[in-house]
């Protein structure tokens, strides 16, 4: 954390938290669950600070004037419009190493994990 701004930032975050419904830490716990990451108590607080800071920064996008309706197809499309790219339906077996060998645990050519209860 930037030492100069630390106390000031922390105060702003606390204020923001008390105003919103679910706290940032709660939202963060949900995000961690969805992302399959375990966070310790300490980490939860630390990440809440850094995530909070970034989200505040993202909030500056609110100042961007709403544009004319952007068609959904345009969102996320980085490739300029051009010919469609399609792959012919022809088999090409992978001839490299036996990929299953890379799994940490396996049995009879199947990847194994503890049982789903």
């Amino acid at each position, binding site marked *: *954390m*930037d030492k100069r701004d630390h106390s000031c930032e922390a105060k702003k975050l606390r204020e923001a938290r008390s105003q919103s419904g679910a706290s940032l830490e709660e*939202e*963060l716990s*949900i*995000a*961690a669950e*969805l*992302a*399959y*990451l*375990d966070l310790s108590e300490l980490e939860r607080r630390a*990440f809440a600070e*850094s*995530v909070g*800071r*970034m*989200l505040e*920064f*993202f909030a*500056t*996008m*609110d*100042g*961007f004037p*709403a*544009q004319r309706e*952007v068609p959904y197809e*345009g*969102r*996320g*499309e*980085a*490739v*300029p419009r*051009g*010919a469609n*790219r399609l*792959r012919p339906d022809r088999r090409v077996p992978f*001839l*490299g*190493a036996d*990929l*299953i060998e*890379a*799994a*940490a*645990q396996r049995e009879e050519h199947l*990847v194994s*994990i*503890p*049982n*789903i*209860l």
Partner: protein
Amino acid sequence: MLDELRPWSGLLSDRKRRPGYEAYAADWEGRIGAFLQFAPERPAGADAAPAGASLDARGDFLGVPFAVKDNIAVEGFRMTCGSRILENFRVPYTATCVRRLQGRGALVVGKTNLDEFAMGSSCDNSALGRSSNPYDPVRVTGGSSGGSAAAVAAGVVPFALGTDTGGSVRQPASFCGVYGLKPSYGAVSRFGLAAYASSLEGAGVLARSVDIVEAVFRSMCGEDPLDQTSAASGRSLLAEDGPPRSVGLIKGLGGLDAEAEAAYRDALRALEDSGLRLVELDLPLLDYVLPAYYTIATAEASANLARYTGIAYGRRAAEAENPADLVRRSRTEGFGDEVKLRILLGTFVLRSGFQDRYYLKAQEIRRAIRDELAEALRRVDLIALPVFPTLAFPHGDTGMDQFQQKMADKFTCTANVAGLPALAVPTGLSKGLPTGIQLMAAAFREDRLFACARSLAPLYPVPEPPSFSQEFLK
């Protein structure tokens, strides 16, 4: 074959010269730690490429060694992405961009260090190694392609590949005093690049000469059936309609420290002296480019990194009661803090209830910026920008923290958001540290970048770090 590359050709198989080379490389490694894997005795070449990849008759790079950032697949080496979770992962295939170079005779001599999963601007986020700036090892190389930049700057390889998501080729190139090219989005296949932000990133080239950068780029670029976002053929991309005549400067750019500011002004004068007309550009939307960039990048990263669980490959946690537990532990143990932060952020901005405000908004901004820049690049041939607000900063607490580093990405991430090509050009030294300037061109107009860089080259000979030598090539 380029004259500059000729001395390198056959170096690795030359029993008389290789010991001198290995000693030189080892000496540098002790100071800068550019490589995570270095194998001059066993490089990965065309014979390691799959059947069907035949040696190009021209052999532009025959026997020439090069380095590859360790988030790009090269069969025969591990691909660690600078992370514990892939520390021992042997990749069973080779990235298309690398295969194309191998097909022309080039040999991968090693894999270079990077910020973990390419997330960072210092290279200090690597979980597996520490790289330092060849000009002053107290300082960072820059990131995330820090190892590649350092290896090239030290003269250990004539060129290296990196990946550039928000500046990760250009910024370290600039910190280390070498050229760094970020090609147009889609110009070079992404197949084989461990994905961080799919719609923003691509492979890039670092070298100490424009000619080498261009030659490598031309060899790699072109449509790849394995990457359906890659664009059609290289030759037709590089239109040539005379040298660039004008360069745009963005109004209201600020936040540079004294040395960076001085170097930037100096470079602008040099551009003018080289015959270019400077034009002021008003691009108000650029105020929004950085939050949009990080929103999109972290969103895509959160999905792209979901595959790392230790189930089918990679590091698996030692004990777990059930698969969910196994996955959580493997990821928690295997990822560093910066990676976790970006995954959490990305998950956040995609969550229903938040997606409109963050992710969709960012895409709107992106589209608008792309249009605004395309418009500007119809009025000028190039846009000049700083690379980074500072020169190479020190490791540790006295340097820049993670948040500050992110805020500093604003000059470079514009090209990624808009899918445009950009080149970091070295502009000498300031108090012993490399300075640089960034040029950006319209999509698929890399030719303009090269032309301008060539006209600047006489004014700015590429610097050499202390102890730099190419004696071993003789």
